[in-house]
């Protein structure tokens, strides 16, 4: 029995939670797996896994971060969003908010817009907060990639 004198750091908590959830999800997904998967099935699985990866990461982080809340919301309302987009054919739900509080109007506007697109929930944030969310999001993404890579390696060996 190992003795643990130190509390794990905050981020490793998130990572461990994510790993646990993700493995569980994979387990569940693999339970119902057909023996000879068609490409469709594979694609289906791929999407499921992808969505679950993001969603579980967001739920592991808890809805304390704007990006995790945005991700969870998008996942929960995926069908609704898709229907809406198909009907209207416009990105009605992603409102174009001009980059408020952007210090570099000339140079960085395009870059900031791209960043807002990348980070979930980054559309309606001030630039300063966007940077915060980006840093946290990047950390979580790194952890996610690491864990997934480990799992893949484990599977493949």
């Amino acid at each position, binding site marked *: 029995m190992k003795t643990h004198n130190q509390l*794990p750091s*905050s981020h490793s908590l998130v990572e*461990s939670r994510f790993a646990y959830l993700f*493995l569980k999800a994979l387990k569940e997904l693999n339970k119902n797996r057909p023996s000879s998967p068609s490409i469709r099935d594979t694609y289906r699985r791929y999407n499921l896994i992808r969505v679950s990866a993001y969603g579980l990461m967001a739920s592991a982080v808890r809805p304390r971060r704007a990006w995790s809340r945005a991700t*969870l919301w998008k996942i929960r309302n995926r*069908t609704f969003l898709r229907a809406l987009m198909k009907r209207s054919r416009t990105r009605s739900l992603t409102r174009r908010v001009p980059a408020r509080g952007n210090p570099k109007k000339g140079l960085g506007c395009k870059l900031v817009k791209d960043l807002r697109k*990348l980070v979930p929930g980054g559309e309606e944030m001030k630039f*300063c907060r966007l940077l915060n969310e980006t840093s946290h999001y990047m950390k979580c993404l790194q952890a996610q990639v690491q864990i997934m890579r480990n799992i893949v390696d484990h599977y493949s060996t």
Partner: protein
Amino acid sequence: MDMAGEDASIEPKIMSSQWQLNINNLTNTSIVINPTSNSNVESSACSSNSMADSICPPIWNQPVSGQSLGYCDMIVENNTSTSNTLGNGTSSIIPVRPNAILRESTFLRDFPVILPSSLPHLPADSGFIERAARFSCFGGGNFVDMMNPFRMSESLNPYTRDLASEGPLEVLAGKGSKSLPVMQTQTHEMNAIERSMEVPLPVEQGTEGSSIKNDKMIEHFPSSHDEAIFGIGLSAHEFAEAEFSGSGIQGELEDDAGESSAKELGSKKRKRTGQSNNGSRQAANETAMDHAEIQQQGYQNRASSKPCGKHDKPGSQGSDLPKEEYIHVRARRGQAINSHSLAERVRREKISERMKFLQDLVPGCSKVTGKAVMLDEIINYVQSLQRQVEFLSMKLSTVNPRLDFNIEGLLAKEPRAGPPSSLAFSSCVTMPYPPLHQSQTGIIQAVLPGLGSFSGPLQGSVNPQLTTVGGRFKESTSQVHCAWEDELCNIIQMGFTSNDHLNGQNFGGHLKSEL
């Protein structure tokens, strides 16, 4: 803990690195300062004690004993409950600890400790209630508001004058920790109060009044310490950057607090303590009185501070303290002052600080300068990370799961999922999923890394594990496991039901739209 921890983990990192810079710059003496660890605030608290130890000797000759600098006591007696003697002489030196230490700290804990020791029996006072109400209004917790009663009581002034000739304060001034003007003036006031309470005074009313005020100040201090501390931190930095304008640390110094909530307060405090910064270079008694006066005026003018009456002080260092009813702002050299540019400056500093942090996160970006390039790199990196996630999920979807899992292999391969997280697994599992665990032991052992090795002692030692790992796990898992389950079910069910929609989409192009 997550939010506070994760947020705090970013901020204290930045702040603690700046502590070192601050401390190295601010203390002009040849005090050797042990490098503080950049890791946690807890460890930094302990290292602050060691730093306090190192600083202690030069100051220790001075008779600081009786007047426990009550406020400063808190700073050092942080998590360790060391005796007052350690905290006393040294704490006044620590310039910018407050903002980081006290965030996590034991202010709330320590203040009541101070109260019974230092305060005599306080008679109820009608003025008490009035002042208490006034304090609670200014939820920002300005020292200003706390200082106001001192302004009103004339009897304090003789004590501040007394303090002017105090040994430690001279030492403080002499040691060039003029970077602590606010601390000084406030310790003046605190000292005045403490002394007024501890030493029997001829003026009884003054004693009682000041003690009541002190009590109030201390009582309401915990409610406002955060912002007050940020204010102090910011003001100290403001002063420091004025002092060492040549150094390139200005930006970091000014933005040490880094909290948007304290931004407003900080900018106001900077203005107010600009005056006190000036004054502290002069005799200390003048500082105290002027500070109190201008605090009061500042308080009166606070509502109209920004639009009206700013005097430009472009880098003037030694000007006298003008006693006018305006908020004076300390400017950096060559920078104009008006309300807009101040806020702009604060914002810019915050943004640059965050960009620096991002720079550390993105690998291979240490040499990149400039926001645009940095942003570009960040965008590329985030895109690459997302693409990697997609690729890995694709890989996972095609790989056949093997029934015989190598648990140790999994455990070894997850670098961060080391012993702590395996413990996390076990406690996570035990709390929300006890029935699951017992029924499907084999499967879960296979899936979860590290659980297999724990399954034996796990059931027997659930409680100790939980206690050792901390309430964090217990409360987090018990509160949120429902959400996880729901999430899991939602995602998978929705995935199964809505697959037909997915098939029509492209592979990776609609990542954002789908998610």
